[in-house]
């Protein structure tokens, strides 16, 4: 199993932000995306996740293999931690107990999610990756607002995932402990920023 991207171009807000991207990620490897703010890291991840279509090029991935984790965790404040986990467990039809243990959420299970700190919420968000049991993780700034101990937990979870043949694409500014392959998005920025077919995104 591998994820391969050929000649990919992505757009954001009607402007082309990335073009001529080519990479292949084999099983068990992680790709770290680097680049300044606005370089297109999130856009690339969203495109790979299928939330927006690529402007051109091809993405080859096995079906139903991707789990995407955005800036926001999708945590429902009015539900308890266990109910949040259970919801994603039901959506992916997988048990959640193991994920809760890996992200050290066992002591928080009965707490309502609105009483969690930002870092605890992030851990709850990251536990979803583990629940999904999908092989390709697309992570957007996964370690944001995590303390050192939680970052370590995340690194362990990520390494375990990679050891089991999983893959990950991580957009981050900090060290994730698995600096495996690094892709700097700076050079893929198009010189001319107009779309080939004009600006009609607002109309469809």
């Amino acid at each position, binding site marked *: 199993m591998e994820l391969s991207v050929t000649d990919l171009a992505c757009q954001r807000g009607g402007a082309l932000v990335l073009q001529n991207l080519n990479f292949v990620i084999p099983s068990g490897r992680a790709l770290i995306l680097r680049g300044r703010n606005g370089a297109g890291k999130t856009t690339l991840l969203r495109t790979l*996740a299928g939330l927006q279509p690529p402007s051109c090029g091809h993405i080859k991935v096995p079906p139903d293999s991707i789990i995407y984790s955005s800036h926001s965790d999708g945590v429902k404040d009015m539900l308890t931690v266990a109910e949040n986990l259970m919801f994603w467990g039901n959506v992916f039809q997988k048990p959640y107990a193991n994920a809760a243990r890996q992200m050290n959420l066992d002591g928080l299970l009965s707490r309502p999610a609105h009483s969690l700190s930002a870092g605890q919420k992030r851990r709850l968000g990251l536990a979803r990756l583990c629940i999904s049991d999908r092989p390709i993780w697309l992570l957007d700034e996964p370690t944001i607002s995590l303390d050192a101990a939680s970052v370590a937990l995340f690194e362990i979870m990520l390494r375990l995932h990679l050891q089991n043949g999983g893959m990950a694409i991580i957009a981050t500014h900090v060290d994730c402990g698995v600096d495996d392959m690094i892709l700097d998005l700076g050079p893929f920025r198009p010189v001319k920023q107009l779309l080939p077919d004009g600006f009609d995104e607002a109309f469809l």
Partner: protein
Amino acid sequence: MIAVLTRDLKLAIRSGGGFGLGLAFFLLIAVLTPLAVGAQSDLHARMAPGILWLGALLSCLLSLDRIFALDYEDGSLELLATSPVPMEGLVAMKSLAHWIVTGLPLTLLAPVLGIILALPAEGYFWLVVSLALGTPALSLIGAFGAALTVGLKRGGLLLSLLVLPLYVPTLIFGAEAVRAGTSGQPATTALMFLAAISAGSAALLPFASAYALRINLR
């Protein structure tokens, strides 16, 4: 998909908000109308079908923007869009959840409010039946409007403008069914139209809404 339904129901019950607000609004309309038009119970009786249907429709409208906006804001809509739950199923379940927390209680509350509005005794059966058949269409059409406007800041006005014209046939046939039933005329034609609107909406609109959501998530 059942997970989405149970989660939405839990959220609706816990955060109150739209759930109670719609019912309270319905109650207010039914209670204040007789006060506004004066004590003429024959006039009330004639107006009751229209007022009750209008009240149900407007209360339904109140909570529409919450269907997708809350999930959009906290990011769970994006995460659900990339999960194994098909978008069409998500929309259908969210519409169903919306109906259970607004349309269903409205239908059950309507007979009580019918008493306030001096609805003749023959009308209650038709009122409940017409609401039960018509309110699913309100939720489904509303979910479509909510899907179209989900990314917009303060899209509430646009949502109302989009959805209200689509509500008109449901309102006409709903009120007509109750009026006809109350005055002893056959109400089945209007009820069949209502049922057809609901069934058609259930069959087609989840696909349209899912498409609209996908575009708005880009």
